[in-house]
């Protein structure tokens, strides 16, 4: 069964995303909405990892399989500065959150196949939040893009 590989991928991706939200929060303190919201969303990712823990305990977690490992995102090496830098950092977060989002979907499919009500309950509480994270990143980037790409120097 390869579900442990995907649980591992999900766990790892949430951890990477949490770390990256915190990096962006630190790097863009002059954008207070980004700063505080990224901290909130990082805590959300932490909570997702905690919520997954009992299922990981039951199924185990593997990071051994080569194929999905290539899907792992390394996270941000460092944040950028300036209006375009903010846009790019948010775009990076968007890619990472998408990886999390689609992995929740895969795990959900497996949980349904396994008729695992406990895991489905966890997914029900978490995957909607990841979706909103994506919507927020998109909303914020849409707001920032024209100014960053046209008017900022």
């Amino acid at each position, binding site marked *: 069964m390869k579900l442990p590989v995907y649980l591992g991928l999900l766990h790892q991706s949430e951890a990477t995303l949490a770390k990256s939200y915190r990096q962006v929060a630190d790097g863009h303190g*002059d*954008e*207070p*909405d980004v700063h*505080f*919201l990224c901290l*909130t*969303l990082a805590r959300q990712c932490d909570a997702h990892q905690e919520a997954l823990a009992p299922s990981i305990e039951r199924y185990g977690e593997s990071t051994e399989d080569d194929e999905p490992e290539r899907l792992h995102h390394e996270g941000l090496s460092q944040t950028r500065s*300036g*209006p375009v830098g903010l846009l790019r950092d948010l775009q990076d977060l968007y890619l990472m959150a998408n990886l999390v989002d689609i992995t929740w979907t895969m795990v959900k499919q497996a949980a349904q196949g396994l008729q695992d009500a406990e895991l489905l309950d966890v997914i029900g509480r978490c995957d909607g939040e990841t979706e*909103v*994270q994506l*919507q*927020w990143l*998109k*909303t914020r980037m*849409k*707001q920032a*893009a*024209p*100014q960053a790409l*046209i*008017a*900022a*120097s």
Partner: protein
Amino acid sequence: MSDRIADIWGTRTPFEQGGNWPARVDQKLAEGVAEADVQRWVKSACLLCSNGCGCDIAVKDGRMVGIRGRAEDRVNHGRLGPKGLFASWQGVDNRDRLTAPLVRENGGLVEADWDTAMERIAERSRALLEEKGPLSHGFYTSGQLFLEEYYALAVLGKAGIGTPHMDGNTRLCTATAAASMKESFGADGQPGSYTDIDECDAIILYGHNMAETQTVLWARVLDRIAGPDQPSLVCVDPRGTEVARHADVHLAVRPGTNLALMHGLIREVIENGWIDEDYVAGHTQRFGDLLAAVEPWTPEAVAGTCGVAAADVRRAAEIFGTSQRVLSTVLQGFYQSWQATASSCQVNNLHLLRGMLGRPGCGLLQMNGQPTAQNNRECGADGDLPGFRNWENPKHVRELAELWGVDELKFPHWAPPTHAAQIFRYAEQGSIGFLWISATNPAVSMPELQRMRRILAKPELFLVVQDLYLTETAQYADVVLPAAAWGEKTGTFTNVDRTVHLSDQAIEPPGQARSDLDIFLDYSRRMGFARNDGSPLLDWAGPEDAFRAWQECSRGRPCDYSGMSYAKLLARGGIQWPCNEEHPDGLERLYTDGTFSTEAGYCETYGHDLTTGATVGPTAYRAMAPAGRALFKTAPYSPPPEEPSDEYPLRYTTGRTAYHFHTRTKTGRAPQLNAAAPDMWVELSAADAQRYGIGEGDIAVVSSARGRITAPVRIGDVREGTVFAPFHYGYWDTGESPDDRPRAANELTMTEWDPVSKQPIFKNAAVRLEKAAAGSGPAPAPTTTASRPAQPGTVPATVGGAAAEAREELT
């Protein structure tokens, strides 16, 4: 005669539930002017709070010499508050008024003629548009202009320049009112009416110190309280306000925890079965979301988080849940605090749960702070699309393009409007190089003032300031434009309960001052803004043309003015919108049949996630198909972003006093008001004062991570662990700089805003307090208001004396 400084609310005229609020005509004339000396009385409405009291301006020899309330006006039945009585006319009849344009030459401001000043603006504007395009331009306006002026500004900004960077200081006072109603009901627009005070049997005030923010509305409540069947009263406020003193239940919540309290109240109402299940089933959506959000919030959980008694939470919920007709009002204690939109939506949700909307006494007033905030929101000077149109709805965008005769591509509808704090951020980063500020004073009213001053002083930023006085903000301007004041121009404005008044011109403006409308029209002409057919974009000759254009823009929308006219407003006085063919006399309450503005083609917004501000978007919204049903929008509680720490152990919150408005540009120039509250103070609880070894009037330094202020301490009724500071005081009248004696409350506040309404969070910060010096007397805080001393009689009472005597005529 009555001393209306000592007695803010005036003589009681008690009445019973469902009765008529008796008239009481308040009048104040300048010293030495008798009633017989008044040559003309000119119809208007008071512009010094959001209440919108109908009044007549007394004119003698071309000057405003006094004011009286209009007995037949639906808003005030003749009454006026201290600000209206003393500051409306004295606040503008002053030798400090700007009487000529000023331009910056060699670092200083020098007088110029209009042509020079306006050409300088137009030249810079043209050059920047050429070089960087419309996103280089920002406009930051007010909550105190007239409807016609906002609409002119909205049209020229959107269809002339094409910038999304437009906002007003309404963002600081009322943005959450609009946002919460958009989220819950599909569009802005107050469901209730002021007459709900007459009809209700319970009133709940959420973060709303009505006794000081809308003194005449509070007089109406006091008259119900003094009547034979007084309504129950619940007050949510961390201070022992006048409202709290009359309340059956006072929930003095820890600042920043409103949402937890609201979750608890809703949970109690549901648990006890006090909901109208038919209404919920027939007229709402997403009840399940609400159930899930409130589930953990038992009264005990609320008590732990909010610092209130669980029994009080139960009692407050019971008053809401078991009264027959409940009026709820909400203001800055919710709007300027953490999780503002989510908390305010929960008040809407309470009313939805009981189906308490659209019936007499079952009202909801998401209040406005400023007198014309409603018009700013309607006309789109706050960046929204005019007429409560939805920027994500292509049909709404097309309607406006056709109305204005411009291409849809011309005006920005591809992203939400840029809110105030973000406009200043872009100016800080240099991508906005042209900023036009009208009738507001961000150098005192925005958060984190050291930063604001740095931005306004940036040499690369071309700053235009249009005002009555050389404010703290105007001192940074490249061009200062002298504006005509209330009474010196004609226009309309709309109060909290959708009542539209015409304010007629009483006198000529001083010197070369011109109305804000004239100034905007002049700029539009000089810039050559045109329709597609080449004709001028704004070809209005004056305010009445602007009003007619607005009527067309509003036609068919929730804020429909199409059935009004200047003549009708003059003849009848205040009329509520919508006023159209169907409702020629206006409509007292909205949503009377439980049908809301949420239909996808009609709504003002597709909504947001209340935690992040992420947009829902058209696809998801249409899939939800609310189709006229209201939405239970909610979010989980989370603690505020800045909590007390070892370094900054106290909570900090800011607010208003009854005697002043905004940054005191008018009220500070009314001698009676200025004497009542002449200088800055901070409030501390008795327990904290003892802990810090501070006595009444001792001087304290209060610091946050952003700055510090020095002010005398009033030992008052604020919640333990919390410091309160009034936000009115700046630097124009002290001659001191912020470096000499920093006293503006916003030196300490933080730059952060609600994710949906984008309203800055003024009421949550962490501070430290130290005693700096012994005082030489009591703090200069009024004793007649929430700032009264905790120990009665320890401080001389605030009185106005002979100068504050006003006539009250009971009929």
